[in-house]
């Protein structure tokens, strides 16, 4: 997911000679930093970690460590509460400011959904921006199995981050976990996610630091991360590296094999795609040509390919391909994306503006939600029977495969992010607050254009190699792809 703050675009001019800092916040952020170190440090980059939990800080291998919330948490974790995370970061403001000083490009790796990451990340982003640095946030949203509460917290934090950061690249843990075999342990699922982010940091940092024959700038990156329809997007990222005779072909195949890419099928929907090819001095024009021809098969005619090529002596004998793009979230693909629609849901305002009556949650726990006075309801006030709308909207959504189950996730960002929360009552809460009228109604409207008559399937060809021409999967019936109505 990405949002560009246009006021800060000027800063990007000065990214030619850059000091890069890679910052990890919270437990997940630390893991990513460790992974980055394992994979080989990003050239010219400082690694900084921040956490409330001292134990994990000491085991981190980063060069700079900042303990958040010395007084608030006293060296323990934030307990999954973003408010504590925020307070902890607030306490350590000076340390953070000092650590980030002088950097002109900052990568912020954070796992949203927990306490420290969700709470502290927006504040850290703000501090980083004060110093005039360009901030790229790489955020993960939790696995679905981590529960709706965490998904909701992640949604809140993401909203806040999009308001403050220059670019937000949002990784979907569910999708990344698909790369892991079902029998693998859970740590592997998380490790796979960390690895993807680590690759992304290295690739994006490489874009700015390596001498490019065809240079890619920050503007290109921003363009690639902006979905066609405007608004929020989900990041499509793939990186592949290969050597040997067939390295160009293999590298691209590996990049597209990334689960975030869905074997290249997703690219059809994106408007701008950034492709960067890095190779040693032995990379030939022919290889680049073949690779790009291969790649063009996966994109439509209208897709703009932002192409870059760079030579890195460290890659001698190898070729690395980076593909970055984004797809709008409202697409009714079967992918299990905990989709957030912060921009289209009218109620999703930046956190501090929402003030909520304190007794909200207890009230909801006892009676059906529409009765609860929520500011969001203003949006749906014209509707005489909000509950009914919500119900029908939800019904219709069931046709859309997994989307029905995602509604709670989309709705939740509407909840006030920083309000002190009552003691948790997760089950009751989710049962009663889910069908909030405003968001499903807005979502239904927004989806009108891309409404499919049925989920896009390939029938008999479901398991065979897809025939992809100009970015279209030709195995899907023509009348479905053109949204023709039959019978």
């Amino acid at each position, binding site marked *: 997911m990405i949002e560009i703050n246009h006021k800060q675009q000027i800063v990007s001019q000065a990214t030619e000679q850059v000091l890069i800092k890679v910052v990890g916040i919270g437990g997940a952020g630390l893991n990513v930093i460790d992974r980055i170190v394992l994979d080989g440090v990003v050239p010219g980059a400082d690694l900084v970690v921040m956490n409330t939990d001292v134990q994990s800080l000491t085991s981190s291998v980063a060069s700079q460590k900042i303990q958040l919330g010395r007084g608030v948490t006293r060296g323990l974790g934030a307990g999954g509460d973003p408010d504590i995370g925020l307070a902890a970061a607030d306490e350590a403001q000076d340390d953070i400011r000092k650590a980030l000083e002088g950097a002109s490009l900052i990568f912020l790796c954070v796992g949203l959904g927990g306490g420290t990451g969700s709470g502290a990340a927006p504040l850290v982003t703000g501090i980083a921006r004060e110093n005039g640095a360009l901030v790229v946030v790489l955020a993960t949203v939790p696995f679905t199995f981590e529960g709706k509460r965490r998904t909701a917290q992640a949604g809140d934090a993401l909203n806040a981050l999009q308001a403050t950061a220059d670019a937000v690249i949002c990784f979907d843990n569910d999708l990344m976990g698909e790369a892991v075999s079902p029998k693998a342990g859970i740590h592997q699922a998380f490790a796979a996610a960390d690895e993807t982010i680590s690759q992304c940091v290295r690739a994006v940092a490489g874009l700015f630091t390596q001498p490019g024959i065809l240079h890619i700038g920050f503007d290109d990156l921003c363009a690639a991360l902006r979905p066609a329809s405007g608004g929020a997007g989900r990041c499509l990222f793939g990186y592949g590296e290969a050597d040997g005779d067939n390295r160009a072909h293999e590298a691209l195949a590996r990049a597209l094999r990334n689960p975030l890419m869905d074997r290249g099928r997703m690219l059809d929907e994106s408007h701008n795609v950034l492709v960067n090819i890095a190779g040693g001095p032995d990379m030939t024009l022919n290889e680049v040509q073949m690779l790009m021809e291969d790649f063009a098969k996966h994109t439509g005619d209208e897709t703009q390919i932002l192409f870059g090529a760079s030579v890195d002596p460290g890659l001698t004998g190898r070729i690395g391909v980076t593909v970055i793009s984004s797809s709008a979230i409202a697409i009714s693909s079967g992918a299990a994306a905990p989709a957030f629609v912060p921009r289209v849901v009218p109620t999703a305002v930046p956190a501090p503006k929402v003030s909520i009556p304190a007794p909200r949650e207890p009230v909801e726990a006892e009676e059906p939600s529409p009765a609860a006075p929520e500011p969001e309801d203003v949006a749906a006030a014209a509707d005489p029977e909000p509950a009914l709308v919500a119900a029908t909207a939800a019904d219709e959504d069931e046709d859309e495969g997994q989307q029905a189950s995602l509604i709670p996730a989309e709705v939740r960002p509407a909840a006030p992010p920083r309000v002190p929360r009552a003691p948790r009552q997760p089950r009751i809460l989710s049962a009663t607050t889910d069908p909030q009228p405003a968001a499903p109604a807005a979502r239904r409207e927004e989806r009108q254009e891309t409404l499919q008559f049925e989920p896009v399937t390939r029938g008999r060809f479901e398991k065979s190699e897809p025939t992809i021409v100009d970015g279209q999967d030709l195995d899907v*019936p023509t*009348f479905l792809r053109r949204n023709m109505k*039959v019978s």
Partner: protein
Amino acid sequence: MSRDHILVGLEIGTSKICVVVGDSKPDGSIKILGVGQAPSRGVRKGEIVDFDTAQKCVHEALVDAEEKSDVMIQSVYLGVTGSHIASFNNRGMVAIPEEQEEITDADCDSVRASAREVSIPSQNMFIHSILQHYYIDGQEGVLNPVGMLGRKLEADFHIIHGIGTRVKNAVRCVKEIPLEVEDVVFTPLAAAQVVLNQHQKNLGALAIDIGGGTTDYLMYIDGAVRQSGSLGIGGDHITNDISMGLRIPMARAEKLKNEEGSVMLGMSLPGETVTLKDDSGFAGKEVERETLNTIIHMRVRETFELLRRQLEAGGDLHLLGAGIFITGGTSLLRGIDDLAQEIFELPVHITHAQTMSGLTSAFENPQFSTAIGLIKYAQAVQMDRPSSWLSKFIPIFGRRR
């Protein structure tokens, strides 16, 4: 009947496996002795996806052919296709040494080798390199340079290549039966040998073979192969579309397509319906005819439009003097020629194998064009007759492997 004259073509298609046994006569004609076929399983889009099942089907078809033709089959010419197969044109060049008087066969070989010195993906293998024209010292249109004088010999080739492992899989499937594979042939090249005559090739003709899983094409301009390729869309896709659009099983959809389907729109009365009969013959679900035709129309139109775009990229579409010749099982679809005519804006013919004797029912069916074409191709390779209209292929194909 000496074995040398028996030629067998084997096509492992997506919908059926077809074996044609032919007798090559010394005068160049071919008599079809028998056709064996078996419904195909384990093949998708022209490529084998289930090895064992496909092998069983091949075996069935071979036994069928042996029974009908009363011939022991020992070796076959194997047709291969699949969307991984691609082609391009390239020119090879050799300099003739000063001391050498005239151009020799060896020079022709080395010019062909030089034409292959291009980069194709390393996993790919060359399937054919087909000679288009020779040039001697820049002079165009030389048909046979051997014996002529010159300092520089150049030649244009049409090179067809595909992913090596996939081609070899098909070969292995046959070899394990066990049968010898004399040569592998890109299927539209085989089909073009029997659906086009020399006159049409000279005028410029496009052969389109629409099978179950793929749509293969080959274009002749001035008697030389100019473009060829394979698109992974075929009759199966139409059936799949119908099955999904009308929510009926594949088998029912296939039957409906064959018996009632048409690609032309607006030909049915408003509200006209087709009744789906179930297995026992009782009337079942009713389907509006126009709906059925719309589904078929959209798929076929899209396929032709894609094809047209690919061919236009080559820039030779306006050179087709004789027009377009459609063959293959899906060419039996009603109205497909009218639609093709509308899209390509060229004369379109539905055609089948010509100039054969023997089983009329076999060669008059467009479904068998490719398998029969394989025999015709094999004959041209085996009968090394210098005056044959196919003679210029011989050195290329004969020494390919």
